[in-house]
């Protein structure tokens, strides 16, 4: 895991430092910055050192002090920035995950059981739409309809803003409802389709026939025997999706103005704030790696045949 993170950090480092783009020192000095000012900024940031020295310092900071450097833009420690932004991202992710799973399961199960019925076709058609709709478009439509300032139907308190949970749980919830729904839409659709195909396959298995032959109710057969086996592929994608989202849902956070890690990364990219970008990338990678690990563990829990 450490090795993987090291490689990722090296690659992002190379991309942002070595490839030609705006000089961060120049950016900070402003339009009228004198060459002396730029040079001094370069020196302060350590940009005048060779790249391997810069990289060595960066990695050393992380390993020894868990220090990700300072934002070029705000001078705030990157670590602090990310930690500050984490609650918003976690709120968004957890809510969306719960929402899309509660949507996907019933839809996927009903579609699989009533395959080729009207319900199934309608559900899968809707799912296709939801998957195809880009998040930013869906988000803007949602804002246009429901946001607190420009919305046509102002039914969600605080929609279009973000209220931390520590401030007001009720408003936190209602302000996040829209982003949850927008973020969950495509995921719910994808998961419903995945569950449908997986469950359809499972329902043809011999052990489902056995369960029926035992005289179990159809409900027990499908839920306890069918779904239990059909969730395996969902576990994999769910783990990775959560990992990815914890690393920042850039589009959703940007559209809904949620101060999460995705938004942080977006702003950092706009400002060529390399240290912050680097930090968010590493964090994202960290979450994905951890998610992978958890998926592997979850696999062993779900499927007793898997042993490590």
């Amino acid at each position, binding site marked *: 895991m450490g090795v993987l993170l090291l490689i990722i950090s090296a690659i992002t480092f190379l991309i942002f430092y070595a490839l030609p783009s705006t000089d961060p020192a120049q950016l900070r000095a402003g339009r009228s910055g004198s060459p002396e000012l730029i040079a001094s900024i370069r020196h302060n940031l350590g940009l005048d050192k060779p790249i391997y020295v810069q990289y060595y310092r960066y990695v050393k900071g992380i390993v020894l002090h868990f220090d990700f450097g300072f934002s070029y833009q705000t001078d705030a420690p990157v670590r602090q920035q990310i930690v500050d932004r984490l609650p918003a991202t976690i709120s968004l992710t957890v809510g969306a995950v719960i929402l899309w799973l509660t949507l996907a399961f019933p839809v996927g199960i009903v579609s699989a059981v009533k395959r080729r019925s009207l319900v199934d076709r309608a559900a899968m058609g809707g799912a296709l739409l939801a998957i195809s709709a880009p998040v930013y478009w869906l988000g803007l439509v949602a804002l246009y309809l429901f946001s607190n300032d420009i919305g046509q139907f102002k039914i969600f308190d605080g929609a279009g803003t973000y209220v931390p949970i520590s401030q007001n749980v009720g408003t936190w919830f209602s302000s996040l409802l829209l982003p949850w729904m927008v973020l969950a839409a495509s995921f719910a659709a994808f998961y419903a389709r995945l569950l449908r195909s997986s469950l359809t396959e499972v329902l043809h298995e011999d*052990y489902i026939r056995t369960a029926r032959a035992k*005289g179990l109710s159809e409900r027990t057969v499908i839920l306890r025997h069918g779904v*239990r086996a059909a969730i395996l592929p969902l576990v994999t994608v769910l783990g990775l999706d959560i990992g990815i989202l914890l690393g920042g849902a850039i589009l959703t956070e940007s559209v809904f103005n949620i101060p999460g890690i995705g938004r942080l990364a977006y702003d950092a990219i706009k400002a060529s704030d390399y240290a912050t970008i680097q930090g968010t990338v590493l964090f994202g990678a960290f979450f994905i790696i951890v998610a992978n690990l958890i998926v592997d563990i979850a696999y062993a829990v779900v499927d007793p*045949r898997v042993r490590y």
Partner: protein
Amino acid sequence: MTGEPLLSVEDLAVRFDTEDGVVHAVDGISYTVDRGQVLGLVGESGSGKSVSSMSLMGLTAGRRTTIEGRVMFEGRDLLTLPGSEVRAIRGGAISMIFQDPLSSLHPFYTIGRQLIEGVRAHQDGVSKKAARERAIEMLGLVGIPDPRGRVDAYPHEFSGGMRQRVMIAMALVNEPKLLIADEPTTALDVTVQAQILALIKRLNEELDMAVILITHDLGVVAEIADEVAVMYAGRIVEQAKPEALFEAPEHPYTWGLLRSIPRLDTPRDQELVPVAGRPPSLINRPSGCHFHTRCPYVREAHRRIDPPLEPVALGQEDHVVRCLLPHETRLELWRSLESGADAAAAGRAAGTEVTEIKA
């Protein structure tokens, strides 16, 4: 046996509506099973043997399936019973075991859990603990060593033969009166096959449990069946006691089956002869006798006339066959075939025309 049979299947027909047409999987079969009796249903794949028995339990039901006829079990017609009552019988008074014991057991649950589930589905108010004891008892009964220690193991931790024993234990938890065994030994190796058959026979005798044994293997049937029905293209083409069926089979298809398996009582150098030709399509079934496309002794009329299932001769009501050849001709043909003659030679000996069947 006194009184009415345990199970009486009357004119059972099962059709599947597919995109290519209607599949006549089972086409009007009738048989009875008495208490404690073992009925062997024999036939090649696609002859309708599995479908017919799964239909008894409503396991083939679907939007595109039509099931006709009557299936009387203890005075009730299983085909018209409401779903909840059929469910109570499924796994209760009638239980099933299947061909592949690994894929038939749920891979994610311990065998104990799967057995307990079966007990509790049929016996209200049984505590988990009592059900578990029952499960352990059954595992012991079917010959699983150390059942108490193995009850919490997963199916993949058992060998093939042990898995089939687990399946049988699962089928027995509710003391069924009828066990439907669908190719129970096909996926097992030969030595294990014999053990499983012996187990089924023992349980049949000890528990007075009737068995429908579905198989393509006449050897299996010979060992334990009290009655054998040979199926072809969704119908029973010959039915008799095993002694009669093996001594004096009268249907050309049965001859084919018998000549395609090795036997100890025939000369060693006698070749095994597969049944020529291919099984007929169940969508566009052959006219007349359904076997005529593969029968070397076919005559013109056989292509038009569909033979009924009739006693082979007067006074032999318990041996029925669906064949248009005269009884005497059939006997002579089999006598020659049994002694190693090929179809052409047998035909000459019996003085009947022989048509060559292309494989």
